[in-house]
């Protein structure tokens, strides 16, 4: 009898502890960017918005967790997620072997391509050409692996700056950012032409990353993503920020 009571008491205690523990887990720190046009940027009121922001908010709602969006930059997001400073990297990341070794990738939430922007006739890899890339991006990694000279910037938004300043003659720009830039007069005035880069490491699946300290989040996130794909939330966000289906 006593043993049963003890067991019951232990169970109640365990439940209470689990309850508080879950309460703590209910709040997630999510790293986001705020200067990727179309994907993650600030609107006229300074509020974070964009396709990636929309998706990450929808996922948090679907997982019934409180998410705190913390703005960071691409060059540090992987390290900080790996160290557990962020639970989730709410940034569209192409899977590379280095990244996969440090963080857990959720299921891809859209498919991207990268574009080569340069003056007409300037081919990728041409001699004496400096390429503008976001530091820490897959494009950065690709350009350096080819031995190209690069000019690194912190955010997607800044990609055009080295071009405008004449520091770079070309840029490798992800699809969504390119869409945003093409809308800007000063970028168009540069007179660059774009071509799709078909190298596999520059396109394909883009996903959020999860801290290796929170492996249980992967299953929840994947299930939530599947649900918002089916219930139409995903499509509404897609239509809101991008001109075609990027899934």
């Amino acid at each position, binding site marked *: 009898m006593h043993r049963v009571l003890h067991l019951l008491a232990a169970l109640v205690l365990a439940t209470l502890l689990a309850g508080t523990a879950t309460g703590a887990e209910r709040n997630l720190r999510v790293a986001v960017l705020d200067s990727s046009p179309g994907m993650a940027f600030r609107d006229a009121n300074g509020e974070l918005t964009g396709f990636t922001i929309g998706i990450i908010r929808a996922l948090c709602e679907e997982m019934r967790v409180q998410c705190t969006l913390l703005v960071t930059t691409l060059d540090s997001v992987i390290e900080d997620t790996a160290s557990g400073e962020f639970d989730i990297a709410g940034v569209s990341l192409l899977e590379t072997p280095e990244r996969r070794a440090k963080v857990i990738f959720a299921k891809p939430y859209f*498919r991207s391509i990268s574009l080569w922007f340069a003056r007409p006739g300037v081919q990728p890899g041409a001699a004496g050409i400096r390429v503008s890339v976001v530091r820490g991006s897959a494009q950065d990694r690709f350009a350096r692996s080819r031995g190209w000279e690069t000019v690194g910037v912190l955010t997607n938004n800044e990609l055009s700056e080295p071009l405008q300043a004449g520091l770079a003659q070309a840029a490798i720009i992800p699809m969504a950012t390119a869409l945003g830039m093409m809308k800007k007069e000063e970028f*168009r005035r540069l007179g660059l032409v774009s071509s*799709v880069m078909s190298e596999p490491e520059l396109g394909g699946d883009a996903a959020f990353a999860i801290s290796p300290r929170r492996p249980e989040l992967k299953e929840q996130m994947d299930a939530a993503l599947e649900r918002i*794909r089916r219930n139409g939330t995903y499509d509404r966000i897609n239509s809101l920020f991008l001109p*075609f*289906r990027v899934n």
Partner: protein
Amino acid sequence: MISQLRGLKQVHAGRAFGLLAAIFVLILGVMVALVALDQQRVLEATARLQEETVPEIIRYQRLARNLEQLRQEGERVFAAATPQARQQAMFVVTLVASHPSVLEHKAAAELAQQVETFLGDAMRQMTAGARDSGPVYEEWQRLAERVGLMVDDVSIQGINLATNDLSYVAEAMRLARYKLTAALIVAGLFLAMFVALIRIHLIYPLQRIDRALSTLSVDRPAPEFEPSTMVEIQSVEAAIGELHASLMENEAARHALEKLANRDGLTGLINRRHFMQTADAELMRAQRYERPVTIGMADLDCFKNLNDTYGHAVGDTVLRAFAELVQEVLRQSDLVCRYGGEEFAFLFPESSLDEAQRLAERLRSRCAEYDIRIPDGRLVRVTLSMGLADASDCPIETALRRADEALYQAKRLGRNRVELAAPVEAV
């Protein structure tokens, strides 16, 4: 199955019906398993629909949406008010045509590539300026029409994926329904057969046994049963046969006992007690219907001398011989008993005093000349004295007393004679 059972000589009902039930359960189990298999197929198909087909359909819808977007952006390339807008539209065309969602569908990818090339050329022409864009736009419209058709095709392809899964499910369900119906029919047939077999092999035999038991009697022959297949029924029927046999034995024993109780051990004639019972009843009957009836008392003459001369064994022999003679001479309906010692009582139904006298005289005379062989081989004769009294109007005791008085009279008048008691009025 029934004829097979009939073909067998001996079957344990418990085992036979147990076996039938086991076969039934087995067959039903197999059919249920088959139905369950179909259910499993349905579950798998719906799971596949959920997990594989629906995402696939979503992909087709998305592709259709992107192709439609491609067509719209193409329109925009022609309709754009500014070169910037045109450039922007062309840029989206490039992105859509290169996006993995389009590239993964071969026909769509080819068409999108064609659209991109066509629009690229058209744009260069338009940027070069001057020329009338009419024929190019007409060509674009034909191309746009093809894109529109492709949108329809892709949509339908997606929907058809679900149709395939659903028809697979429907097929499995239909199959399951047939199997279920078959299982129900088999169960019904089996139950019907079970009931029929129980009726034939258990209920009908039990009813026969019930009838046989309720009419079982020593007056009837032992009941005959149709040969039954079931061992249990056979043994009950055999037991009924044995029961009937023991009833018969008991009846025979009862008869023997009754005889022992009612007969005189030496002569085999009825004894005095039985005579009194029977004679009383006969007298009552005669008096009720006003029929004549006569009572007689007889005594072997000088029997004491015979006993003294030859011994009791000879006396017994004589008594037995006399009893035989009496039964031989008298009518079947006449009652006679050994009343005691060498004394005998008679009842002559339907006989007046005169008629009884004639009978008595015949007995007396036959007795007088009847040679009786005694054990040592010699022959002896005995005579008989007898008194008769009319009993049609008085109790048995009175009639016996009066017959006894007449017997006494006969003795007194010299023995070997029959005397009649005087009529009652004269007494």
